């Protein structure tokens, strides 16, 4: 069955909050998750560190799931684990009425004499760089929140669940354009376009730090 768009959920976040010595829950397989569910969305621009709860010694981290507050350690710890990190809290983007996203990027022409001769004279291709963009149109509440993010050169977290259930696109983006519109007889509107943030800004981890769609 198709999905009516009105059920789509779109989130953004507020400013990062520092958490120190945050308790975790052992998930097994060297994975430890922040126990407080409200603190599981890590801010990717902040270092995440793991420590033994009693001894206080630092523990090596192999990988971090920034969206679910999970660290995978390099070796099994002798004690409970506590984390230092910064987290953000989600809130619905008020006034949102339309959105779009695109998983795009480059598809490169790889045609060669050998390949074309082998396939009867057809072009062949290979994936190049991927890219992700999101656009949101909203009824403007004049809070200037997104303008503030852009002026401060901050990453913005966007989470979209099409139709309200199923797959969720989530990631950290840069606000490319913030357009304000409003005809004489209409509501004041704000059109936002986002592009995937700079991976170099991430302290640890790769692309999974700033983008997920599952």
């Amino acid at each position, binding site marked *: 069955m*198709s999905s*009516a768009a009105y059920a789509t959920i779109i989130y953004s976040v507020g400013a990062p909050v520092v958490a120190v010595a945050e308790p975790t829950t052992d998930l097994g397989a060297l994975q430890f998750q922040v126990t407080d569910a409200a603190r599981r969305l890590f801010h990717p621009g902040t270092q995440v560190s793991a420590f033994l709860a009693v001894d206080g010694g630092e523990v090596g981290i192999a990988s971090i799931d920034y969206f679910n507050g999970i660290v995978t350690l390099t070796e099994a710890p002798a004690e409970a684990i506590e984390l230092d990190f910064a987290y953000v809290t989600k809130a619905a983007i008020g006034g949102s*009425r339309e959105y*779009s996203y695109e998983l795009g990027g480059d598809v490169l022409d790889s045609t060669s004499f050998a390949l*074309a001769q082998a396939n009867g004279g057809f072009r062949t*291709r290979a994936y190049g760089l991927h890219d992700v963009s999101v656009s949101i149109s909203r009824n403007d509440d004049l809070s200037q929140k997104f303008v503030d993010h852009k002026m401060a050169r901050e990453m913005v977290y966007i989470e979209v669940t*099409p139709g309200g259930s*199923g797959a969720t696109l989530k990631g950290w983006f840069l606000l490319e354009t913030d357009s304000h519109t409003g005809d004489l007889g209409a509501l004041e509107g704000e059109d936002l376009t986002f592009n995937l943030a700079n991976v170099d800004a991430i302290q640890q981890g790769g692309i999974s730090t700033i983008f997920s769609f599952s």
Partner: protein
Amino acid sequence: MSQAAYNKKIRISADDGATWYDLPATSPSLEIGGDVLDDTDLATNAGYRSRCYGLHDWSANADSNYKPVTGTPLVDAASGATALLLCRNAKLNRTGLKLRYLPTGSDEDGTGLEGDVLVESFGGSGEVGGLETVSISLQANGLLAAIPAVP
């Protein structure tokens, strides 16, 4: 006699053609193009340009209704949700797909076409009063072949 489009099927396979899933497309298209090279010269022209075929190329687009995947294991193949998931994952994982364009809905009457594709773009959109939709553009990665009729 003309062919009503509602019978058409656009099918996707992620396992090299072993299993096929229907895309929930609303306005699919297939373009078979490529290069047609101008070989006109002063020695042989009869007052007209002449040409020869260069490389062939083709592409497909499938604007679709969005179908959420529900259940474990996947239970939404008939709705088109599985095909959408395959396209999205092919893009994210940099893998290829096989595409079948079946104008009559049949893969046995000799009218269908099949080839390997890469997902150039996979996008979604929704307006508060409308349906969730997905736009998929596919680029060829090699030959487009007719699917033989089954006697």
